[in-house]
């Protein structure tokens, strides 16, 4: 590690150290992202409802593939197959081929049913019981809707102009189709020229998209998500019982038209409700109790290509059945600092406070994490 990097680490540690005095601090070099509080509406709510991070997600590109995936989710005896992880945008799949960019952009300044349907994402997932003796299967369905999105790249005039400029420079160079080749050698040569032009189209178009991402990452939007879930104790389809669900909403404000902040800051307000959640009982191993919870929070992110800061907090109200309800607050501050071209320092401080444990005692927990990475985590990602 070079001298500036060492100095930056020491500086950050010295600056942040006093803030640790209030907490029972733990210092380690795990990924600083572990501190981050999730304040977004999940892309695939069904996976989140079941607590899954599936390695392999089926994203069907045709209705036939969708039907096959759904049919494979249930065996011939009517039992759920565990491990289903399906993510699909139904409107795009069913009608996307007939929607031109011009139709998509119609009435760009007002909400449009086409765009709302287009951005709607549905998901489905199944998960089996926690051990071999447990035959239960849980099923969750999810939907994510974005009624309003000022960062929609299909509505970004600058991106479209950039892409069209690239495309014009390539399509306006006459090329003979492969079928015009008199023999295999000539066909191969025509194919090579087309592939070369296509590669140029891809490379230059990617530059347009990268620039647009920097411009659009923080734009204002509103997203909603819902994921009802069911449980079947024996895994069969006809013995499904309601197992609760989750609702999410997030509103992002991108400081549009605010000089200095319009491409550099984003404020997210987030709320979620979880009903009928089965929570492991810490006093009775293997037992669960039912709980409803509500959470509300906010995140402020700002930065540029050299640093990024994220400040976030979440207030949680938990109401377990036949137990004392509790309230708590989680908060964290994360900083990414660019040390060199491909080296970023990540630092985060986080904690949870106000929660009352079984002895009705309030307590506070905090932790400090740091690490280095090739890619910044806090910047320009939506």
């Amino acid at each position, binding site marked *: 590690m070079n001298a500036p990097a060492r100095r930056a680490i020491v500086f950050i540690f010295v600056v942040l150290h006093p803030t640790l005095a209030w907490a029972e601090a733990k210092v380690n070099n795990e990924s600083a992202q572990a501190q981050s509080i999730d304040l977004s509406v999940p892309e695939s709510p069904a996976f989140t409802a079941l607590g899954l991070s599936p390695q392999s997600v089926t994203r069907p590109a*045709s209705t*036939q593939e969708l039907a096959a995936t759904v049919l494979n989710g249930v065996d011939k005896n009517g039992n759920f197959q565990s491990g289903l992880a399906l993510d699909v945008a139904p409107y795009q799949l069913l009608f*996307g*081929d007939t929607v031109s960019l011009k139709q998509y952009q119609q009435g760009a300044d007002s909400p449009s049913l086409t765009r709302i349907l287009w951005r709607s994402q549905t998901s489905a997932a199944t998960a089996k019981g926690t051990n071999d003796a447990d035959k239960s299967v849980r099923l969750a369905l999810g939907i994510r809707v974005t009624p309003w999105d000022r960062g929609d790249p299909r509505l970004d005039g600058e991106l479209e102009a950039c892409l069209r400029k690239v495309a014009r420079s*390539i399509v306006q160079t006459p090329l003979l*189709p492969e079928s015009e080749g008199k023999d295999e050698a000539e066909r191969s040569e025509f194919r090579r020229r087309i592939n070369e032009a*296509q590669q140029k189209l891809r490379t230059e178009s990617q530059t347009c998209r990268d620039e647009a991402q920097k411009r659009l990452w923080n734009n204002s939007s509103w997203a909603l998500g819902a994921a009802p879930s069911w449980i079947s104790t024996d895994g069969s389809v006809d013995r499904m019982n309601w197992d609760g669900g989750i609702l999410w909403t997030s509103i992002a404000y991108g400081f549009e038209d605010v000089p200095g902040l319009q491409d550099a800051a984003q404020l997210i307000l987030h709320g979620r409700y979880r009903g009928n959640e089965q929570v492991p009982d810490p006093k009775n191993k293997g037992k669960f109790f039912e709980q409803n919870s509500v959470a509300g929070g906010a995140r402020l992110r700002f930065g540029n290509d050299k640093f990024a800061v994220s400040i976030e907090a979440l207030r949680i109200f938990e109401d377990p059945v036949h137990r004392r309800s509790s309230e708590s607050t989680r908060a964290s501050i994360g900083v990414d600092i660019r040390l060199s071209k491909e080296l970023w320092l990540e630092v985060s401080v986080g904690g949870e406070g106000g929660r009352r444990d079984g002895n009705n005692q309030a307590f506070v927990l905090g932790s400090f994490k740091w690490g280095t990475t090739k890619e910044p985590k806090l910047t320009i990602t939506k």
Partner: protein
Amino acid sequence: MQTPQINVDRNGPVPTIELRVGQAHVGEFATYLWTPTPTLVKAGPTDDVFNIGPSVQNLHGRLFTWNLGIQYQADGSKTYSATAVITQGEGTLYEEHYPDPPGQPMDGDVLIVRGVRFHVA
């Protein structure tokens, strides 16, 4: 595969081509008549319908090609869809759908270069 030859009615109107791109992607095209050097017929954004050349007689034996660029705006675009339809009056002379077969994943921006040869009779 040889370039498809399509029959054009010498007494009918000038054939038109319609180039469409779906999935709300960016589509940009250029079309050429070859003699054998290429002459630009029209270039621009899809979707568009326009005449191929000034007269039917002028098309006999000539190669007509279209370059069609299809670009996505954001990662996560799973598939693409485009069509090229050549008509004369009410009749469809030629139709192609991309990708072929449909439903193939879009693994990047796409450049389609295709053509037909006219036989006027």
